[in-house]
Every structure is written in structure tokens, then in C-alpha cells.
């Protein structure tokens, strides 16, 4: 089976320097004939190679801004982390008005979906309690979910079977827009403003469900550039219900565990830290933790590779914005909540393992290969030079 990937290589730029093969968390890259190649079964679109490539040879494929023109009715749903990309000079209400200036008909912050999902997670964890595996691992970061599927397949049962705030938001706005305008849902374009390539992949190839309500994704940096370039011309004409501080908080690390009202929560960020922790969970560790928030990027979504601002600065900015926003508008929140059936929050299908861990499906063959690996390794000096083009 072949998988869609938003992370791609620009061959002309690749020098075969081997930086990426060392940082790839799933050993998905080989250097062949002097160029990097990505193994589709292994790649989880986390974007580590984009971050690490000194030659900018790795990119994330997202939609061009004019892609939205193909749709009769256009809705933007910016990630909670989006508002972290602007300094004080840019009033957030005006920044968001920039979406309307660009041609969107409507905007709804995914932070609102995050707020709704927070309540659903709390209910799920509290109602099932002791029946759940420990820890339950958040499904919000698609790179982490894929990491579990390929490298820690025994832990797929620990992943919370919950839709992401992006999906909940997209589904809600699409339905409401169709009701309001009478436009056929297929002519409504819902665009997620993404911090990372993993989200670009997940809408093309959803996990735990057969299709996504998101039409396409636009890179945060493309949108930030547009807004900043046109800022003087943007008219502040926004009339929307803003997300709450809880929902916006999802854009950075610990936002999710702060939003979920249960004891014994833990947050981990950075794909290699996540790997180490999953390794321990596989060995029976962290049983005292009930809910684990795990994010592939350092700092959470503010650290995504499609962001512009320094991740730590972005986190500070996000905290300031969320403090200003304050609590949820209870009346509005209750109304939206009543419009979304409970079952909509849950993934329809089971998340299945996609293991890359075994050397062969046949155990005799796997044993033979392992013996060969071990005898070869014992003869080598153990210097990680990367010149064979493979990870060590």
C-alpha cells in the first residue's frame, strides 16, 4: 500500500549530506546515488528533516493561496497556534480580518473546536476510568499517532479514539454554512491554516475515519506573509465568536492537559522525547499517568516547521493572547455544543498498526537477517559516519 506524504524532497537541492538520516525518528530516509530518498511506509510527515536540512531540500507541500478560489463558499479555520505569529503591532482582530480581505467568506478558529474537544476528552476519561489503558495518549498530533502506528504498534490501543479539534471545527462550519447559504457542501471549501506537514497529510489520509471535512491546508507562514504584506489595506470587520483561552492554549505544549479536567496528566514534546517515552510505556512504564499529551514539535504546535516566529517567542505571544481572550462565552459554547452529537467526537474506525519494526514477516527469515546484522555490526568499528547512506 502506498501512503500520501506532504513532505517531499527537491532533488536538485539535495547534496546527500546525511543530516536528515540521523534525525529521522522512523529511519525513513536513505541516501541513494548521492540523494536522499524517503521510504513512504516509514515516513510520518513529522517535518524533522525539513527542520534539519541545511540545503532546504526538504519541503512540505501545501495549497497555494489561490486554491480557495475554486470554491463557491470559502471558510478559513486557523490552528490555535496561528495567533502566536504576530507581534504587538498587529492587532489580532485585524489579523483575522485579513482572511476576509483575502477572499474567505467566513472564519472560525480551531481553538473553538479545541474547547469543545477538551470537554469531550474529560467526559471520556472520567466515564470510562479504570477500563482505559494507561496512559491514554492524545490523538491530536497526527505525527505522534503515525509514530505509534509504525514504531510502537503495540500501543495503538492507548490512543484516544477522538477526532481532532481541526476535524470537529471543519465539520461544524461546513454543515452550518451549507444550512445558512443553501450551497452544496461539495462547493464549500474549508481550509485549515496549518503549523505542520503532518496535518496536511492527515486530511488526505485520515486516521480512524474515511474522509476529512477539511478541503485543503494552507501553510501558516504563507498566510502570515499575506496578512503582513497587506496589513495596511485590511479593514477590521470581524464579527465572530473568538476561541477561549483554553482552546487557544492547545497551540502550545501543556495546553491540552490544562484543558482536561482529570488528575495525573502529563505532557511531552519533541519527537525524540516522545519516542523515548513511548519506549518506556511499551515496557510497562508510566502506569500512574492517566492522560498523556504528546506533541511532535518542541513547544507544541507553536514549534511547527511551517511557522515563522521562534517557537519560544511564539509560546510567549500565545500565552499573552490567551490571557487577553479570557474564558469561554458560555452561552455560545453551549449552543455549539448542543449542535454537535456526542458520537461525532469519536473516531469511527479503529486505529490500526502499520508496523515497520520487523525484519521479515517470516520469523525464520527475520532470525537469519538479525544474525547477519549482528555479525556484521560486530566487525564494524561502530563509527556513525553515514557513508553507507543508512541510519545506524
Amino acid at each position, binding site marked *: 500500500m502506498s501512503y500520501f506524504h506532504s513532505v517531499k524532497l527537491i532533488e536538485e537541492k539535495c547534496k546527500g549530506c546525511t543530516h536528515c538520516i540521523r534525525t529521522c525518528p522512523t529511519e525513513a530516509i536513505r541516501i541513494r546515488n548521492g540523494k536522499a530518498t524517503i521510504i513512504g511506509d516509514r515516513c510520518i510527515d513529522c517535518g524533522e528533516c525539513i527542520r534539519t536540512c541545511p540545503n532546504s531540500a526538504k519541503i512540505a507541500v501545501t495549497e497555494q493561496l489561490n486554491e480557495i478560489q475554486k470554491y463557491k463558499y470559502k471558510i478559513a479555520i486557523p490552528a490555535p497556534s496561528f495567533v502566536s505569529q504576530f507581534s504587538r503591532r498587529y492587532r489580532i482582530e485585524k489579523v483575522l480580518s485579513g482572511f476576509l480581505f483575502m477572499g474567505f467568506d467566513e472564519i472560525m478558529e480551531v481553538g473553538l473546536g479545541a474547547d469543545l474537544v477538551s470537554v469531550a476528552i474529560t467526559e471520556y476519561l472520567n466515564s470510562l476510568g479504570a477500563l482505559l489503558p494507561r496512559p491514554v495518549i492524545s490523538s491530536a498530533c497526527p505525527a505522534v499517532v503515525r509514530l505509534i502506528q509504525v514504531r510502537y*504498534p*503495540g500501543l495503538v490501543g492507548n490512543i484516544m479514539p477522538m477526532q481532532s479539534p481541526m476535524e470537529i471545527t471543519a465539520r461544524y462550519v461546513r454543515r452550518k454554512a451549507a444550512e445558512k447559504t443553501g450551497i452544496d457542501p461539495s462547493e464549500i471549501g474549508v481550509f485549515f491554516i496549518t503549523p505542520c506537514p503532518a496535518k496536511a497529510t492527515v486530511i488526505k489520509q485520515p486516521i480512524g475515519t474515511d474522509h476529512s471535512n477539511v478541503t485543503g491546508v494552507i501553510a501558516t507562514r504563507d498566510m502570515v506573509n499575506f496578512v503582513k504584506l497587506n496589513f495596511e489595506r485590511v479593514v477590521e470587520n470581524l464579527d465572530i465568536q473568538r476561541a477561549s483561552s483554553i482552546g487557544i492554549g492547545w497551540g502550545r505544549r501543556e495546553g491540552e492537559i490544562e484543558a482536561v479536567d482529570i488528575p495525573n496528566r502529563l505532557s511531552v514534546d519533541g519527537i525524540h522525547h516522545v519516542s523515548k517515552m513511548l*519506549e518506556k510505556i*511499551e*515496557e*510497562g512504564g508510566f502506569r500512574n499517568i492517566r492522560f498523556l499529551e504528546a506533541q511532535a514539535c518542541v513547544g507544541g504546535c507553536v514549534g511547527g516547521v511551517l511557522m515563522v516566529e521562534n517557537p519560544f517567542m511564539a509560546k510567549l505571544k500565545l500565552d499573552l493572547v490567551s490571557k487577553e481572550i479570557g474564558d469561554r462565552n458560555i452561552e455560545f459554547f453551549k449552543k455549539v455544543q448542543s449542535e454537535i452529537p456526542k458520537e461525532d467526537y469519536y473516531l469511527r474506525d479503529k486505529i490500526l*498498526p502499520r508496523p515497520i*519494526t*520487523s*525484519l*521479515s*514477516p517470516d*520469523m*525464520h527469515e*527475520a*532470525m*537469519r537477517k*538479525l*544474525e547477519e546484522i549482528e555479525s556484521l555490526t560486530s566487525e564494524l568499528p561502530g563509527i556513525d559516519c553515514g557513508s553507507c547512506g543508512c541510519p545506524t
Partner: protein
Amino acid sequence: MGTMHWEFSVTGGNFSGAGEAASKIKNILKKLGIAYEVIRRVSIASYEAEMNITAYADEGKLLVDIDPLEINITASDRGPGIPDIDKAMQEGFSTATPAIREMGFGAGMGLPNIQRATDWMVINSTVGKGTEIKFKIYLKT
């Protein structure tokens, strides 16, 4: 094509490195494509055995034999031995020092956990000399 063998040494008192052998064993089983449920059971048993050596013995080792039908592990150590094996097998019974408990170990669940996770287990011990724990897990149920 018969059996593959591994040997991992474990140093008594080295809590910071504890769990390494169990982790290596787990990763070997993943490479061999063993079922997750079996890997989980082997991980629990080998981790507990490794921790016992770390917490109580001077030094020891885990010997691992894998063939297409079963996994056999022998955890042997040079150490104080177990005076009363029946008692040691009781849940909650522990001779751990306060220092060991301080580090989160010594709940008296180690040996019972090994028994629960494995298909067969036997303990031989000589007080003042050392302990040998053997256990087996079948690959196919």
C-alpha cells in the same frame, strides 16, 4: 535454523542503567516480528528480573534463547539469595531496604509479576551465593 542466544550483564545497584537489558530484549523481539502481546509479557518479566538483580545482587546476567516456538530467559546472579521462596512469591512481600523503596521499587510484586506474565517459571536459590530464575513464554498460544 535453530535458536538464537543473547547475554546481557546487569550490575547490582546501578539503578540509572536498569531496564536496559529488558529494553534490548524487547527491541530484538520487535525485529523478529513477534506478536505485541507476547512482547508485552516478555518485557514485563525481563524487566522485573533485571530489577531484582539491580536491587538485591552484586552482579548478574540475563540469558535469552529464542526459537520459533518459545522464548526462554534465565536471570542469574551472585548475591544474597532468597531464604524463603514461597514467601517471596507472595504479592506484597518484600525485603527491600528503605533506600530501594525510596526509588520506587520493592513493592513485593516482582516475582508474582514474572509468574503472571510467563507460561512457566522456576526459581533456584542458595542463601549467600545467588539466585537463578528461569522462565518461558510460548510464541503461539
